[in-house]
């Protein structure tokens, strides 16, 4: 507001997002140098399709984590969405869009249920959503039993106009999933950083009691973040179902760790009160490109990718906490002072 553009720029250059952008650039440089294929737009964009679901969910799990909670059930809601779409479309004859809408509504209810337990019953988010991850995955399996086709055959044959949702390529290269992600990022950014609702999320995360004394309905705010993250998981489920052309109950079952990694890497404080949609979006892309680039450029097998992602997470969090560690902080101060004297 009262800051000059230069000041803002300076602040941005020092921000965590800038670090992420640097890591992203480093990825492009290293991978690009190792194998020029990496830089081919068609390949690069195509590869993004494979991790867009994680990016989409991470955006809104950020909301949950800002309130001081955590959401480890989002992954199983992806599968639940997928199988609901499949079963209601194939066996109940619903229009595919109606089926998708229904799935999103069910997901929202699931999120509301977990959110209710967290916000109104005061149960730890970790346990509730852990229970939720079991429960919703289990329900997905039960729904899949309702299908007339034997469960091992899966449900497929979705109409093309549904599949195009995830398959269309703008200008022949930019996949629609990426566009959906960008739209959602902008949406999440506005919601979190520009609206009164977003401000309430932050305040509740910083100090729930003080928020209540300010007349904020903190429980409703907390619950709503779980609804939002479940809905985003559901959108990811719709996108993924359209992308794969098949409805399965176990889609997304192993997304959890990647989602949390992306949110944390994005700079969200796991104790709540601090976080950033842009950081999350960047971090999720950083992870995705790592998973794409390492096999392509260095022949690392997919089953080994947990190592570099884990190492990246460890290095980043340790480095960041080192910055605030007393001994290093002292070192930095001394170093700065010496710089001033010189």
């Amino acid at each position: 507001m009262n800051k000059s553009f230069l000041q803002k720029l300076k602040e941005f250059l020092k921000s965590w997002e800038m670090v992420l952008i640097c890591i992203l650039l480093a990825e492009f440089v290293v991978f690009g140098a190792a194998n020029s294929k990496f830089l081919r737009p068609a390949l690069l964009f195509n590869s993004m399709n494979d991790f867009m679901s994680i990016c989409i969910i991470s955006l809104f799990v950020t909301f949950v984590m800002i309130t001081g909670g955590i959401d480890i059930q989002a992954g199983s809601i992806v599968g639940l969405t997928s199988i609901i779409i499949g079963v209601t479309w194939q066996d109940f004859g619903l229009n595919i869009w109606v089926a998708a809408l229904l799935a999103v509504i069910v997901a929202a209810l699931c999120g509301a249920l977990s959110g209710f337990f967290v916000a109104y019953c005061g149960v730890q988010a970790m346990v509730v959503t852990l229970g939720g991850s079991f429960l919703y995955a289990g329900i997905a399996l039960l729904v899949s039993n309702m299908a007339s086709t034997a469960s091992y055959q899966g449900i497929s044959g979705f109409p093309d106009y549904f599949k195009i949702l995830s398959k269309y390529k703008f200008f022949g290269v930019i996949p629609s999933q990426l566009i959906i992600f960008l739209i959602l990022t902008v949406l999440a950014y506005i919601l979190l950083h520009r609206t009164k609702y977003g401000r309430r999320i932050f305040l509740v995360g910083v100090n729930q009691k003080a928020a209540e004394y300010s007349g904020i309905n903190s429980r409703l705010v907390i619950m709503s973040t779980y609804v939002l993250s479940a809905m985003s998981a559901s959108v990811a489920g719709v996108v993924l179902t359209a992308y794969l052309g098949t409805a399965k109950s176990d889609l997304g079952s192993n997304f959890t760790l990647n989602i949390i990694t992306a949110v944390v890497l994005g700079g969200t404080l796991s104790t709540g009160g601090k976080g950033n949609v842009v950081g999350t979006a960047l971090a999720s892309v950083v992870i995705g490109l790592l998973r794409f680039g390492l096999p392509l450029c260095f022949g690392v097998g997919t089953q080994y990718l947990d190592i570099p992602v884990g190492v990246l997470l460890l290095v980043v969090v340790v480095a960041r906490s080192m910055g605030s560690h007393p001994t290093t902080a002292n070192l930095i101060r001394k170093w700065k002072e010496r710089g001033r004297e010189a």
Partner: protein
Amino acid sequence: MKKLLKSREISSFLFLVALFLIVGIINPNFLTSSNIVACFNDSVVYIIVSVGMAFAIFIGEIDVSVGANLGFTATVVSCMLRDGQNWLLAFAVGIIIGALMGLFNGWGVAIMGVPSLIFTLGTNGVMRGMMYVYTGGAWVENLPAEFKKLYTNTLVGSISVNLTLTVLAVIAIHLLLKKTKRGRYFIAVGDNPAGAAMVGIPATQTKVAAYVICGVLAAISGIVFSSRIGFVTATSGSGYEMKAVAACVLGGISLSGGVGSVIGASIGAVIMASISRLLVFMELGSTYDNTITGILLITIVVADSLMQRNTAEKNRRQRLAARTLSGDKAKIGGGDHE
């Protein structure tokens, strides 16, 4: 007060009994003594890993790398045994690996101050990957028959030696935690870290120790795991971290730290370990596995939390009401201030 403390474990235990009875009503085959004993026998791996997790949770942190730790240790120890190495050496190597992983986690969490969920998530990923690197993805098979016998050896009736040792160890750990000066530190650190520092409790050391214990127990459970299963796959132990957390919560341990006991964790572990088995007896098939686990977990924690909140609220109101009541007395008796 002490009774109240204990009641959390007792309510978990009653829940376990109720669960068994319900299944017994559906299928009387379940309630044979040998089957019940088998339920406990087969819970040993879960008990050990959950007790380890309990230490991490006591201090107010979490360790989601125990599953990978378990799997990795199982892999390394099994490879050594398969290749005919000395058993003691193999066990020692396994336990050292577990301790080192615990130490590393402890360093990250207690010394570097990284949030524990995040840090152990990272080590989890790295260790899972290492399992592949170590085995190249292949199964470790054909473990020595004598090693597998370690699991089935029985003591009294069909109660296994493992179970007996585990139960004794759990009781010993429980007593150490409750009765010794250093044992109490774990709970204290989780209860109020800053307060712990005030009375001279070495908070950092205690936290690191908790992680080392957690790592060592994960490693031991990895060894028991391989002697029970007889072969180790590249995904062995995945999912154990969450089940161990669930076991602790079912056993009345609060995730915010400072509350609960290892006995509670063990009871929770028996519940978690028995679910697949219960489903077989209920003819429900594994389709219901997740649903039931989820419902169990949510119901118990929600009920527990509501109950706790109610008592706290009741206490508060009683305390406040007592103040105005004594006000009445003051009026009548002319004040109780000398």
